[in-house]
């Protein structure tokens, strides 16, 4: 089924709300079976394989991280990080009848161990129609300071 831009916009707002409310399971379920979350290290990076990344997680690694977050299991997530994302200036382009590319500005603020850390960048989604809805093939976040000295990022942006 073809999706209107309005549907896609709502899908992305929904995706953001799930992350913002720490609804990790519902969030990862938005991905296609092979869908991946990617934070490259450099803006020109075209693959997670030939260059180191900040994060590259398909379903299994996401499941591992999410299990930690949900149970506060792991020293760094013991205090249960709480985070919120600000997605703005969304632009949606059709790739094909069933495929879209979306891009926006993104900022994430993550609260853990008494400190708030913030991260800024752009975000891109590769979306596909699936049944009556949409799935994420790839979500890519490019931080402006990805190559700088960063400290912990515990949740998804």
């Amino acid at each position: 089924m073809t999706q209107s831009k309005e549907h896609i916009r709502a899908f992305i707002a929904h995706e953001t709300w799930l992350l913002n409310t720490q609804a990790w399971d519902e969030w990862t379920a938005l991905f296609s079976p092979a869908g991946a979350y990617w934070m490259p290290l450099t803006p020109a990076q075209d693959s997670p394989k030939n260059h180191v990344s900040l994060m590259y997680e398909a379903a299994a690694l996401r499941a591992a991280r999410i299990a930690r977050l949900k149970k506060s299991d792991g020293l760094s997530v013991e205090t249960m990080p709480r985070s919120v994302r600000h997605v703005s200036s969304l632009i949606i382009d059709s790739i094909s009848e069933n495929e879209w590319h979306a891009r926006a500005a993104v900022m994430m603020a993550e609260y853990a161990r008494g400190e708030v850390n913030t991260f800024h960048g752009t975000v891109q989604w590769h979306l596909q129609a699936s049944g009556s809805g949409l799935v994420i093939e790839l979500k890519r976040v490019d931080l402006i300071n990805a190559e700088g000295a960063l400290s912990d990022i515990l949740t998804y942006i």
Partner: protein
Amino acid sequence: MTLDIAQLVKPDRVHRSVYTDPAIYQAEMERLLRRSWLYVGHESQIPNSGDVFSTRLADQPILVIRQPGGDIKLLFNRCKHKGMQLMADNTQGCVKALRCGYHGWIYGLDGTLKTIPSQAGYQGAEIKPGSDAVALNAVPDFAQHRGFLFARLESGGVDFSDWLAPMRPSLDNMIDRAPDGELEVAGGVLRYEHYCNWKFFFENTLDALHPMVVHLSSSKGAQRAAKKGASVDAYEARALSMLSPFSASYSFFDDMGQRGGAFGHGELGGKSSIHASYDVDPDYWDALVKGHGKDKAKAILSYGPNNSVLYPTIMFKAPVAMLRVIRPLGVDRTMIETWHFRLKGAPDSLLEQTLQYSTIVNSSAGIVGPDDHEAYRRMQSGLKAQAADWVLIARHAGQVEKDGNGLQSAPGTSDFVFRNQFAAWADAMAQP
């Protein structure tokens, strides 16, 4: 400053102030870091004449430059006119000459002053092109080993080859894993800011008692995901297989062994490591045999320490071709860089594996590094407690055996490597 080092480092314990006292940190810069062989980089970062990068050794701004003849020179990143830092930190480029962006003094690649704009304004022998007094200062001691670059900020002390000797076999093992016998930097560098003293990192990296506690949830999570498996492709399956051994048993780590030697050097594993069970790409095996012959190829792959430390700035992982270097920023702040290497002559899958491991384990956004980091942070804050002054490093006390290459060995979970680090630390710190 008068430091009673003997009161801080005992055979089986160290005083908490070695990690928390700003005055001791300052003394470390002067007595230990300035006088030690430090990691600089790898020559493949600057393959061509004029290639240059900026870095820090201890707290000093440094330029590393490929000379026209192929040599490499280390210069202080500080103009001799009024002192501006010539290149910004952690940048690189390819230049014909080094031009200061403040008043345009131009230096040759070797640091010789070539041009002063409007030079007529200067009289006397000192301030003019070619004068030693205005040449960029060179770092006094510099050494290379098969592409790796090392330097020392203060001349004197142990020879480089003596310093490297205890860990040289392991470093060579990392290099020999290249079918062509050479490495090159590849795939980007991770910079991870740590809010802790630099020494926690060097202990932790050889600490075989922590993975099954600190990394249990990540390891078990990977194991669970691998069991379900349905939608896991080969690439992600490898990721899971990398995480899985982090919760290996104590006996696995004990059997892996550890070794320590002069200068605080030491390593964990050798015959085995948490990387030992990775699948070997048949194409790589073929290339390795082609490059080294079957026997040497076998020998190379049958050895590989989990983590090797060239104290006090380097940790490298021979089996996965990566190196981590500390850049201390303060008593409770340290930047850790992770560098990755392509094995020349090997198929792409090897670098891919190195990079994948680093993305999962070394990245500040991974599910391994932040748990180690949290341990360091809590060490830093826990040691503020005045009720207990000592950090215990007594495990397997006295249980060392003579090993090859001037090293001593111990069970993998021994504190021997820590005692060995602090012996070298105390030696250096006792010299005013």
